[in-house]
Structures are given as structure tokens and as C-alpha cells.
């Protein structure tokens, strides 16, 4: 356990210079294997949580026991043994290496293709360098700037201590513990995640990125994020990383809740590139995520943009509940599934208020033996007069062993609303490839160009710095799938 000790020391060393520290619990030890009421208590105790949160966790745990894992998604995997998982362990960093020469060359090639600077490559690959201190200073300046505006951006475990009233008021208010199997599990055992609060009238001056959370890789498999935007606010939040992320935890069940008050806008962008497993799907991450936003206020707006290229299995439906009159929900998605990957992803748009509007643009790309399903629900409730939805689901097939599926559910309870659904399925044609090759592009360049063209409507929704990397990422994810 020398390595673990070293790791803890290292983190301690960092955190002592790290005034606003994201690092919350450095004394962590591993909880025993498996899940029980005691484990839930252990986690809560370790995190020095108030009683109400422990009770909330226990309630979630009991609920979870009475629930069944959902089986309606078009994904196929062996039954998960929940007693064979560690629910709490010391923050782990990847094995420390002395230089980039010791890093898997394949990983380095990918970093290079993504255009990640050397310094960042070293941090990502877990090379023991001082650059962590650089990130600390960046993050600190960053937080000072936010604090000036009254914006709170911190780990949720810290928010539980510092802003208990806010957390208590909103946690579970969008996604109740009984919402679904994985959300209940997350509520019982979540370890950490982000907390964002934008006070009334403030437009957040910068993109909030988890990248600045230097110990992000330790947040673990049960992340919990809560973002609250008060009246007349704007915030853009970036989650994830284009660099391939490996994790020894196979199951990831995160929960993300967004709350938008009057005239508030939340833009939530995700690039997900968890390890997809080998060509036969061995060892990849199961990404079972519940994400939902409540447009409570009038003229509020929540926009989800996601680029999903990783994970062996993706089960994810970022949704919007449009309660406020004239509120707007948007979902822009690119889901790439190659080799043995399976993705069942989409959105729910629940129109409750009058004149609410939603837009769904989904681009699914399947290659190899992958199965890619769009599953979406548009519900227009009785009072949602004058509401409108537009849905466009496009699927692109590469090769002849993959599959694309579109499963839209439309429930309309008032005649005074308009719902449109368009869907297309296409293939990268030989003509298109040959045309590109004839202009001197190689097969991989050509595929990347054609696929990125196909995804353009979604990519343009991503913040600039994300978009460029995400474009490269899509190309890399499909390498070797053509020709």
C-alpha cells in the first residue's frame, strides 16, 4: 500500500497550497466490498455529512432495493453484481510515471492527434510533474474571478458543508430518488461532483469547466452535479474531456440536475470519451447517466449538447421539463458507436407551460458491429397550448454489420400544439469516399470530414474550444472503420 500512501501524501501536499481546495476528503480509506445500509452510512460519515443528507441517502438506498434495473433499452450486457463493487475508496491517481517515454505509445499518438499540448499530456497520462501546481494557480485565479460575481462553483461535497440550505432545497428536486434504478443508486452512494450557483442577474463571464477540477479523475463512478441558475442569468458548463479516459470502475452512474428560474439560461455541453473496451467490447465502461433540467421560470432555457464517443454501453437521456411559460428546451447530440459499442441515448422534452418550445437534433453514427439507438419522448401536456417541438434524427451507417434504430415516443394531450419529427438513415457512399480520395485526402481524413459534415448542426452548438477537439475526436473514434 506504499503507492496509495504516496498518493495521499502527494494530494495533501497539493491541497495545502490550494486555498479553495476542491479536495475534500484526504483521509479516505477503502470501504469494504459491496453495498449495504452500513456502507451508505460509512460514506456519509466519511464525508461528515449532516443528518438530513444521511437520511436522504438511506431513503434512496431502500428505494433502490425495491427497484428493478431497467431492461427496455437496446443494450445487452451481463447482469451487474452490485455486491462486487467498491462504493468508497481513497482517491486514486494513475500510477506515477517518470516521463512521457513510459506512457503507452498508442495513448500518446491519440493525444497528439487531438492536439493536446505536452504539458497537458503529461498530466493526463499521470506523469509525475509539477504542472499540477500550474493548474492549481489557474484554478485559483479562476475561482477568485467567479467569487467576485457571487458565483459558486465547487465540489458538491463542499457545498453540502458551506451552502447546506441551497443543496437541501434543490438536490433531488429535478430527479427524485425514486426516478429510476440508477438515479436511486447514485442518490444513495454518490461520492462527489460539481455544484454551481449563479445568483440573480449574473451572466457567468466564462465557461465553467470540470477541467479546472484537478482531482476530477477521483470523483469516481457515482458523480452528482447540481446547477442552479437564478432569475436573469446565463451559464455555460463544460463536462468531460476529449482525451481518452480510462477508469478501473466499470459502472458509472452519474446524476446531473439543472434548475433554471425566470429568464435564466443554462447551456450544458458534454464530450464523453470513456474507454470503450477492446474491439470485442471487453473491459469498457458502462455509462448509465440520468440528466435532467427543470425550466421552472418563464422564458427560461436549457440546452444540452453532447458528443458521445466513448463507453462500451451508453444509457443516457438528458431531458428538459418545460414548466415555465415560453420556456425553451434543446437537445443536440452526436453519438458515435464503433466496434462492439452500444449506445441507447436520446432525450425527453416534457411541455407543461404555455408556448414552450423544444428542439431535438440527434446524429447517430454506427460503425463496426455497433448498435446505436435514438430513444426520445416528446410530451405535450394539456395546458401546454401553443407549444412546439421539432425533432430531427439522422443516422449514418458505416459498413454493413452495424445497426441504427430510432424510437420516438410522442404524446400530445392538446390539439393546440405542433410536433414535428423527421428521421433519415444514410450510409457513407463509395462515391463520396472516392471523391474525397481523388482530391488527395486519405481514407481516415475523408471519413472524418464526411462524418463531421453529417454532425455539423450539433458541432456548431459546442463552445469553440470544445468543438475543434471534438471534431478530431470523432475522426479518431472511427479510425479503421472504413476501407
Amino acid at each position, binding site marked *: 500500500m506504499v503507492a496509495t500512501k504516496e498518493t495521499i501524501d502527494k494530494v495533501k501536499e497539493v491541497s495545502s497550497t490550494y486555498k479553495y481546495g476542491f479536495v475534500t476528503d484526504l483521509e479516505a480509506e477503502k470501504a469494504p466490498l459491496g453495498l449495504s445500509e452500513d456502507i451508505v452510512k460509512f460514506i456519509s460519515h466519511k464525508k461528515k455529512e449532516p443528518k438530513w443528507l444521511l437520511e436522504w441517502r438511506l431513503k434512496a438506498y431502500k428505494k433502490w432495493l425495491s427497484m428493478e434495473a431497467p431492461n427496455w433499452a437496446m443494450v445487452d450486457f451481463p447482469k451487474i453484481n452490485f455486491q462486487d463493487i467498491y462504493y468508497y475508496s481513497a482517491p486514486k491517481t494513475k500510477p506515477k510515471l517518470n516521463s512521457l517515454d513510459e506512457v503507452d505509445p498508442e495513448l500518446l499518438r491519440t493525444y497528439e492527434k487531438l492536439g493536446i499540448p505536452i504539458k497537458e499530456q503529461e498530466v493526463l497520462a499521470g506523469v509525475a510533474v509539477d504542472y499540477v501546481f500550474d493548474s492549481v494557480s489557474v484554478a485559483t485565479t479562476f475561482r477568485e474571478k467567479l467569487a467576485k460575481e457571487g458565483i459558486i462553483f465547487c465540489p458538491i461535497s463542499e457545498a453540502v458543508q458551506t451552502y447546506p440550505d441551497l443543496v437541501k432545497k434543490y438536490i433531488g428536486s429535478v430527479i427524485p430518488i425514486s426516478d429510476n434504478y440508477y438515479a436511486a443508486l447514485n442518490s444513495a452512494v454518490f461520492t462527489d461532483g460539481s455544484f454551481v450557483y449563479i445568483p440573480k442577474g449574473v451572466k457567468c463571464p466564462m465557461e465553467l469547466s470540470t477541467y479546472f477540477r484537478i482531482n476530477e479523475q477521483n470523483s469516481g463512478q457515482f458523480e452528482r452535479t447540481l446547477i442552479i441558475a437564478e432569475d436573469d442569468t446565463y451559464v455555460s458548463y463544460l463536462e468531460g474531456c476529449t482525451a481518452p479516459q480510462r477508469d478501473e470502475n466499470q459502472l458509472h452512474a452519474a446524476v446531473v440536475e439543472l434548475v433554471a428560474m425566470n429568464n435564466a439560461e443554462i447551456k450544458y455541453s458534454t464530450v464523453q470519451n470513456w474507454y470503450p473496451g477492446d474491439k470485442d467490447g471487453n473491459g469498457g465502461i458502462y455509462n448509465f447517466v440520468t440528466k435532467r433540467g427543470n425550466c421552472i421560470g418563464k422564458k427560461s432555457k436549457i440546452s444540452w449538447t453532447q458528443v458521445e464517443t466513448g463507453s462500451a454501453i451508453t444509457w443516457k437521456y438528458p431531458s428538459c421539463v418545460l414548466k415555465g411559460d415560453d420556456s425553451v428546451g434543446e437537445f443536440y447530440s452526436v453519438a458515435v458507436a464503433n466496434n462492439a459499442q452500444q449506445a441507447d441515448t436520446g432525450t425527453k422534452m416534457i411541455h407543461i407551460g404555455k408556448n414552450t418550445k423544444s428542439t431535438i437534433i440527434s446524429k447517430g453514427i454506427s460503425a463496426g458491429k455497433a448498435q446505436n439507438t435514438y430513444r426520445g419522448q416528446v410530451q405535450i401536456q394539456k395546458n401546454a397550448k401553443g407549444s412546439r417541438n421539432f425533432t430531427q434524427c439522422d443516422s449514418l451507417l458505416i459498413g454493413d454489420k452495424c445497426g441504427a434504430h430510432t424510437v420516438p415516443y410522442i404524446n400530445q394531450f392538446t390539439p393546440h400544439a405542433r410536433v414535428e419529427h423527421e428521421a433519415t438513415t444514410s450510409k457513407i457512399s463509395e462515391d463520396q469516399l*472516392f471523391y474525397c480520395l481523388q482530391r*488527395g*485526402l486519405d481514407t481516415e481524413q475523408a471519413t472524418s470530414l464526411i462524418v463531421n459534415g453529417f454532425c455539423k448542426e450539433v458541432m456548431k452548438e459546442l463552445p469553440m474550444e470544445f468543438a475543434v477537439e471534438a471534431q478530431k475526436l470523432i475522426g479518431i473514434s472511427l479510425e479503421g472503420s472504413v476501407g
Partner: protein
Amino acid sequence: MSLLEIKNAKLKLDDKDILKGLSLSVSKGEVHAIMGPNGSGKSTLSYMLAGRDGYELESGEVFLEGQSLSDMEADERARSGLFLAFQYPVELPGVGGMSFLREAVNSRRKFLGEEELDHLAFVKEARKVASKMFVKDEMLKRAVNVGFSGGEKKRFEILQMAMLKPKVSILDETDSGLDVDALKIVSDGVNAQRNDDNAIVVITHYQRLLDYIVPDFVHILSDGSIIKSGGPELALEVEKNGYAGLINAA
């Protein structure tokens, strides 16, 4: 040395003989026209030269500047300076014309050992060339060939040719779908690129294109081989008597 040398090329498609021993030699500074009736193998010839999958030679050989093309993939041939202006340019939804052009030009530059152009330098160059071709900026912002008229598609092909500066350009039925005005613009674009260092092979069904792009040599392709070669007057003979007379005489 010939810039392009086709030696006794034979090619089958679905077990059917399409090219039956075609030979052709094209030198620097020359424009050759290959004329032939429908089904004579014109498009097959252009795909074979460009290296499209499924159009591999059964026997014979092709050389570009003395280098055999037989082991080169389509993209390598393109980077080496072989350009095909498509009869039916392909739509690439969502792929902006400018970025497509830039990737293509930089691939060629990289091959030639030249520095890749950055975005600004490229845009400047592309606009300069485009304006000569009456290609509006707006067209370069649109997705490649998507919603282009017949004339726009062909102009965009020739614009690509001008940007890539190929050694050998093959124009496959470039006149198809063009009205007289568009034909003139496209031909002017092609003529502007004729020089002592490159060569152009014009594949066409009709003589009228050759009024605008005047060839040095005309070849009649029939049933998979060249049955007659001559000067520009040969094209006029086709126009007057049709292919039938020539084919019967051969």
C-alpha cells in the same frame, strides 16, 4: 518522357471486357481529347486512371511521370498530381467548400514538401482563384456540391483543379449539363491552366466542348480501344459523320 503513358490497358467489369488494350501517350503541354460513343469505355477509363476501387487493370500498365500507378491508391495518385474532374460531382452534406478545398490543397502541398497553408493564407488564395472562375464567396461557404446547379458543380470542379495545380487533369464529360454560357466560363477556366508543364485529357461525347478547349490531339475510343487518332479536324469529322462511319471504317 511522357507525362501520362497508358500501355495496352485491359480491364474487366463483372466479367465483361471493357478496356481491350488501350494505349495512349500524353506529353507535357498537350491537350488530348478522347471521344467516343456511349458505352465505349470513356468513364471506365477515367475511373481506372484515378484508381477507383474495382477498376484495377487486368493487364497493361499506366505511368505518371514515369512512375507506375499500379500499386498506388486513389489518394496517392491524386497527391502525385492526377486530377479527375467528375462528370457527376458528389455531394458532401455539411462539409464546407472552403475547408474541403483546404484539406485537399494541403494534402497535395504536404506531398510536394511545401508548407501547408494556414487558414488566412488559404482563404485569400482561394478567393483570388474563385473570382477568376466566377465562383462567388458564398458558394465556398456552402456544403460541397449540395444544392449546386449543374454549372456551379462544374465550375467548382475546375476551381479545385486550379487550386491543386495537377500534372495531369482528366475532364470527364465536363460539358454535360452545361448551357453555352456556363460552358464558356468553365472552358475559360480550363484554358487558363494550360501550360508547358501540365497536360489535360478531355473525355467527351460531343465536339462542341472542343470548340472552347481546343485539343492538340483527338482520339476515337470505341469498344475499349482507340481506333483512330488525329488532330482537331478529327473531332469535326465526328460531328459531321457521327461515330458510326469512323467505327465501320476502322
